[in-house]
C-alpha cells in the first residue's frame, strides 16, 4: 500500500537498433527521435494515490509498458523522478522496491510446481517455512487454485496459469501491484471472467495497482483513473467517465468508446454570441455548458472536426437539423442495431435501439435512406489542425 509519483519521467533509447529488439515495430509508431535517441516515453507526470487503481492504455508502441517497466525497475529511467511512498527509487533494484508484477506471458518458472512458483519470492526473502506455507495456501485459497499446488505450470490451462501468476504476486503483500497486459493471452470469454475476478481481487487485497492494457474496455471497467498514451506522450488522465465525456483530443475521443466516435469536417459558427456547429446544412446550437467553455477560451468561428458518439446520434429531430444518408451495412446486436450510414461523404456509425425501430417502423435495410441528427450537448469540438478539444 503506497502512493506512487512519477515526475517528468522520460525514457530514451540511445539508438534505433535497441528499440527494434524490444519487439516494437518501428514503422507503426511516430516516436520522437532526438539527438539522444528514440524517445519512448516523454515527460510522464502522475500522482497515484494509495490504493488507487490506475490503468495505462494506448495502442501498441505508445510507451505504456515501458512506463510500467520503469516503475518496476526493469527499465532504466532516462530522466525524471520516481517516488514510491515519497522515497525516490530511481536507482533501487526491482527486488527492493517492494512491488510485484504480473507479466503478459505469466513468466511462471516451468521447472517448479505451482506451490514453488508462489513460494519463490518468499524463499528468496528467507521467510520461515511455516509462514511461507501459510501465505501460499492463503493466496491459493483466494484464487481458487489450491487443488493445483502440486502441478507444474505446463499442466495448467491459460486461465489457471494466470491465477498462479497473480498468486505469485499477491503472496508478498507488495506496496504496488503491477500488471502488464495480464489478460491479453486469454480468449474473449475467459478474459471477461478474469476481468471480473481482478475487480473482486482488488477489493480483497486493497493495494495500489498499475495496470497496462491496449483494451479500452479493460481500462474503462477496471480503472479508478485512466492514463491514455500515444507515441510516448500522455494524452489525457482522468476517470473513465471524464475521458469518455470530455476527451482532451481527437485521439482520446477515437480510442475510448466502442464503436468508435464519428468524426466529421464541420464548421463552428458564432452568431450573436451563440455557438453552433454546421454540418451539411444542418445547424445544431450547442448546450449551455459548451457555450460557456468555448466562450471562456474565446474560440472564434472556424473549421473544426466534429465528434459525435454513435450512441448519441438519433434518427428523429427537427427537419432543419437532419443529415441525410444511405444505409451501407446494418449489424444486428440483439437489443440494438449498428448502422453504417454513408453520409457527408463518409461512413457514420449509428446505434439504434431495437425498440425505436419497432415502434417507429424505421427502414434500416441496406440501401434505405435515413436521416439523423444529434444534440448540442453531445458534440465534441476539435481543432482541425491541432486536434485538441476546443473546450479545454
Amino acid at each position, binding site marked *: 500500500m503506497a502512493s506512487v509519483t512519477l515526475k517528468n519521467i522520460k525514457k530514451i533509447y540511445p539508438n534505433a537498433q535497441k528499440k527494434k529488439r524490444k519487439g516494437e515495430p518501428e514503422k507503426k509508431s511516430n516516436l520522437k527521435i532526438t539527438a539522444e535517441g528514440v524517445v519512448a516515453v516523454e515527460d510522464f507526470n502522475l500522482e497515484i494515490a494509495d490504493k488507487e487503481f490506475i490503468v495505462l492504455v494506448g495502442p501498441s508502441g505508445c510507451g505504456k509498458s515501458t512506463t510500467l517497466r520503469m516503475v*518496476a*525497475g*526493469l527499465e532504466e529511467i532516462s530522466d525524471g523522478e520516481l517516488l514510491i511512498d515519497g522515497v525516490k527509487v530511481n536507482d533501487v533494484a526491482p*527486488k527492493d522496491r517492494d512491488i510485484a*508484477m504480473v507479466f503478459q506471458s505469466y*513468466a511462471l*518458472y516451468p*521447472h517448479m510446481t505451482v506451490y514453488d512458483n508462489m513460494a519463490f519470492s518468499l524463499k528468496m526473502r528467507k521467510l520461515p517455512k511455516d509462514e511461507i506455507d501459510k501465505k501460499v495456501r492463503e493466496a491459493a485459497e483466494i484464487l481458487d487454485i489450491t487443488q493445483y499446488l502440486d502441478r*507444474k505450470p505446463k499442466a495448467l490451462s491459460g486461465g489457471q496459469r494466470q491465477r498462479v501468476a497473480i498468486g*505469485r504476486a499477491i503472496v508478498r503483500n507488495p506496496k504496488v501491484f503491477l500488471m502488464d497486459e495480464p489478460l491479453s493471452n486469454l480468449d474473449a470469454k475467459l478474459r471477461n471472467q478474469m476481468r471480473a475476478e481482478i475487480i473482486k481481487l482488488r477489493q480483497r487485497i486493497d493495494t495500489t495497482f498499475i495496470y497496462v492494457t491496449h483494451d479500452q474496455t479493460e481500462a474503462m471497467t477496471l480503472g479508478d483513473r485512466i492514463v491514455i498514451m500515444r507515441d510516448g506522450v500522455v494524452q489525457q488522465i482522468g476517470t473513465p467517465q471524464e475521458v469518455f465525456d470530455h476527451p482532451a483530443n481527437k485521439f482520446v475521443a477515437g480510442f475510448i468508446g466502442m464503436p468508435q466516435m464519428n468524426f466529421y469536417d464541420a464548421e463552428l459558427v458564432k452568431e450573436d454570441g451563440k455557438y453552433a456547429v454546421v454540418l451539411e446544412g444542418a445547424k445544431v446550437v450547442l448546450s449551455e455548458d459548451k457555450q460557456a467553455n468555448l466562450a471562456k477560451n474565446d474560440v472564434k468561428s472556424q473549421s473544426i472536426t466534429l465528434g459525435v458518439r454513435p450512441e448519441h446520434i438519433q434518427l428523429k429531430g427537427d427537419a432543419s437539423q437532419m443529415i441525410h444518408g444511405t444505409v451501407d451495412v446494418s449489424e444486428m446486436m440483439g437489443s440494438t442495431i449498428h448502422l453504417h450510414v454513408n453520409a457527408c461523404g463518409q461512413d457514420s456509425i449509428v446505434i439504434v435501439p431495437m425498440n425505436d425501430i419497432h415502434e417507429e417502423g424505421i427502414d434500416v435495410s441496406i440501401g434505405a435512406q435515413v436521416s439523423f441528427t444529434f444534440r448540442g450537448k453531445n458534440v465534441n469540438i476539435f481543432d482541425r489542425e491541432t486536434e485538441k478539444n476546443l473546450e479545454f
Partner: protein
Amino acid sequence: MAPTLAAFCVGFIWPFLHGLYLSFCQFTTVNNAKWIGVGNYAKALADTSFIDSFKFTVAFVIVATLIINVTAFAIALALTKEMKGTNIFRTVFFMPNLIGGIVLGYIWQTLFNAVLMKMGQPLLALNTTAGYWGLIILLCWQQIGYMMIIYVAGLQNVPPDLMEAASIDGANNWQTLLKVKLPMVMPSITICLFLTITNAFKLFDQNLSLTAGDPAHTTEMMALNIYYTFYARAGAAWKGIGQAKAVIFFILVVIIGLTQLRATRSKEVQQ
C-alpha cells in the same frame, strides 16, 4: 526408407555383428578366423595395460568434462550478455573445433615441449604428468568453443520474462543462475555432457599424435591401447584380444553414455 535401411545394414549392422563374432575368434584376416570362445575376453581383462589405460581414461574424462563444461557455460553466459563484439568472440572460440585432431596433437606437442624445455622439465615423451594435463588442455581448447555454442543457444532460449520475474521476486544474480537459468538450460547440459563424456572417452587422434602413450604406455587411453593391441603386437592371438577389448570398450561407452543421459534428462523441463 528401404535404401537407408540397406545401407545401415551393410555399413553398420553387419560389420558390427561380424566384429562381435571375431572377438570370439583367433584371426589374421576377416575370412581367416577360428572360433575359440571367451578366451580373448579373459586375456583382455587380464592385460594390465588395458586396465591401466581404463584408469587413465576415466581420470582424463572426469577432469576434462568438468573443465570443458564449466568453462564453456561461463563463456556462454558472458557472451549472452549484451556487449559489443559477441559475434566475433563466438566465432573465434568456435574455430579450434574446425582443426583436425592429429594436426592439433602435433601443434600442441611442439608448444608443450617448448614450454617444458623453458621450465627445465622433461619433455612429453618422458613426462606422464605433462602428458595427462597436455591432453586435457588440448581437448579443452578444442571442445570448449563447440560446447559454448550449444550453451549459448540454450541460454538464448530462456525467456527474458523469467529473469525479470526472478529479479522482482528478489533473487540475486547467483540465485537466478542456480534456480532459474540452470534448470532452464538442462537440455543443453544433457547434450553437452553426453558429447564431452563420449568424445573424451573415445579420444584417439589427439592421444596418438600428442603423446602416443609415452612414456611407457602411461598416457595411453583405451582407444589407443586397443589400437596398439591390434596392430602393434606380433602374433595371431593379439588381433582377437584387441577385438574383445573393442567390444568391452563399446559396452562401457554405451553404459556410461546412457546413464548420464538418463540422469540429466530427468532434470529437464518443458515450457
